[in-house]
């Protein structure tokens, strides 16, 4: 047998982005946990293996409270990836605070790197304006079971169907020219104006700006028809088109 001594020509360092959901407990915490339990129950499997970030900034707990909240979340088999808003030394090592680039401060505008000699002028767009700009991701094929499309920058348009077990996550609206059988998350950057459109509705879950409806909540008369989903205050409306 020969030993392969071929030299490597390049070293690949690939960027990878994941989407984590943020839990933001509110006082009274007991009440908040009750609501969390309802959500977990009503969307069976949704939180399984999803990385979650616990943001305690708004309730400013003391150390004992913070640890209690973490323990209660973990005993529900939810997978915490990091905790924000408390002193780092309180936390168990595995829940280290997020590195800077992950935290919820707006990401630096990539067109204005420090080494860039001629940074573009003009005020950077705020997040809402950015998500309303005309950035669109166009996908001209079926999205298959197990695939996830993540496009925080704007709208996603799919010319084809989205299979059961597939996910579309968009900062803006989602347009599906085919059957939506999987999951759609629109307005993921806090865009309440985002909508979800599909030419044939058979979804597993619809989410707009964190508010969601599961298949159990859908009006069954709409299944199979073209629909749009949008937010009206804090209520998601799904309408035939």
């Amino acid at each position, binding site marked *: 047998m020969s030993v392969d001594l071929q030299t490597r020509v390049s070293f690949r360092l690939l960027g990878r982005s994941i989407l984590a959901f943020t839990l933001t407990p509110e006082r009274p915490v007991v009440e908040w946990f009750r609501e969390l339990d309802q959500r977990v129950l009503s969307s069976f499997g949704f939180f399984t293996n999803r990385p979650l970030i616990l943001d305690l900034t708004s309730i400013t707990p003391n150390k004992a409270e913070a640890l209690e909240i973490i323990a209660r979340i973990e005993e529900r088999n939810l997978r915490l990836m990091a905790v924000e808003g408390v002193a780092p030394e309180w936390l168990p090592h595995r829940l280290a605070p997020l590195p800077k680039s992950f935290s919820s401060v707006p990401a630096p505008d990539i067109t204005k790197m420090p080494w860039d000699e001629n940074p573009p002028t003009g005020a950077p767009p705020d997040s809402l304006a950015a998500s309303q700009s005309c950035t669109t991701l166009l996908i001209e*094929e079926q999205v*298959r*079971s*197990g695939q996830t499309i993540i496009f925080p920058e704007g709208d996603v348009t799919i010319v084809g*169907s989205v299979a*059961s*077990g597939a996910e579309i996550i968009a900062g803006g609206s989602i347009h599906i020219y085919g059957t939506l059988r999987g999951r759609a998350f629109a307005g993921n950057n806090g865009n309440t104006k985002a909508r979800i459109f599909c030419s044939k509705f058979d979804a597993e879950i619809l989410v707009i700006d964190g508010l969601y409806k599961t298949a159990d909540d859908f009006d069954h008369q709409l299944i199979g028809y073209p629909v749009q989903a949008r937010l009206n205050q804090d209520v998601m409306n799904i309408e035939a088109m």
Partner: protein
Amino acid sequence: MAKVLVVTSGKGGVGKTTSTAALGAALAQNGKNVVVVDFDVGLRNLDLVMGAERRVVYDLVNVAHGNAKLHQALIRDKRLENLCLLPASQTRDKDALSEKGVARIIKELRTQFDWIICDSPAGIERGAILAMRHADAAVIITNPEVSSVRDSDRIIGLLDSKTERAERGERVEKHLLITRFDQARAGRGEMLKVEDVLDILSVPLLGIIPESEQVLRASNLGQPITLANPMSAPARAYSDAARRLLGDEVAMNVPIERFNLLNRIFGGRAA
């Protein structure tokens, strides 16, 4: 120009091995030089369906590791001289296959055969990925039921991302073969309809193989159904599918057992 075809499904027990043997034999009957390769290392079955289980000396893993030459491991079929089998190992597991070894074997097979048909293991792990890695075309085996269809959808996604062709920005040619189709049960709504399966997967249909005890009988005798009982409904469906793979235009219908047809006429049962 040699063509590498992977027979895959995601879900187990839907008929990958049976279909590999039947399509392989049918292509060989059409005069092509065919090798069927069993990638199910650890749970090999293709040798049984091909009736060659007592003739296995060296296997895919031996060749991949360089412990045997390819020609030592290839088993020539006793019925069709242009049909060969490259068996899997029963004693090793799927980690025993190296990506480099598989690449070398496929390259060598391409010089000797017109069709290289890879029988994929179930699942979406390493074994299944290795089996599809070098494919030019894929036959996706689906039963008309929701779990099988969703698993097939997952596999199609992998064909579009994990294969060599996908990495080069090309596409793997895909064909859908619906197996274990029961017209009566589909008519009663107990199975997904063919058009529903096609709507969900949107892959061109290669054929519909009716559910038949003939298939099981042939497998137990160690014969591909297309050789064991060429006039049976499943054998005719596989032969038509093989001709479509060769580029022939063959009208699509679901062959039914002649016996059942009479039953249906005289039994008065609507299909």
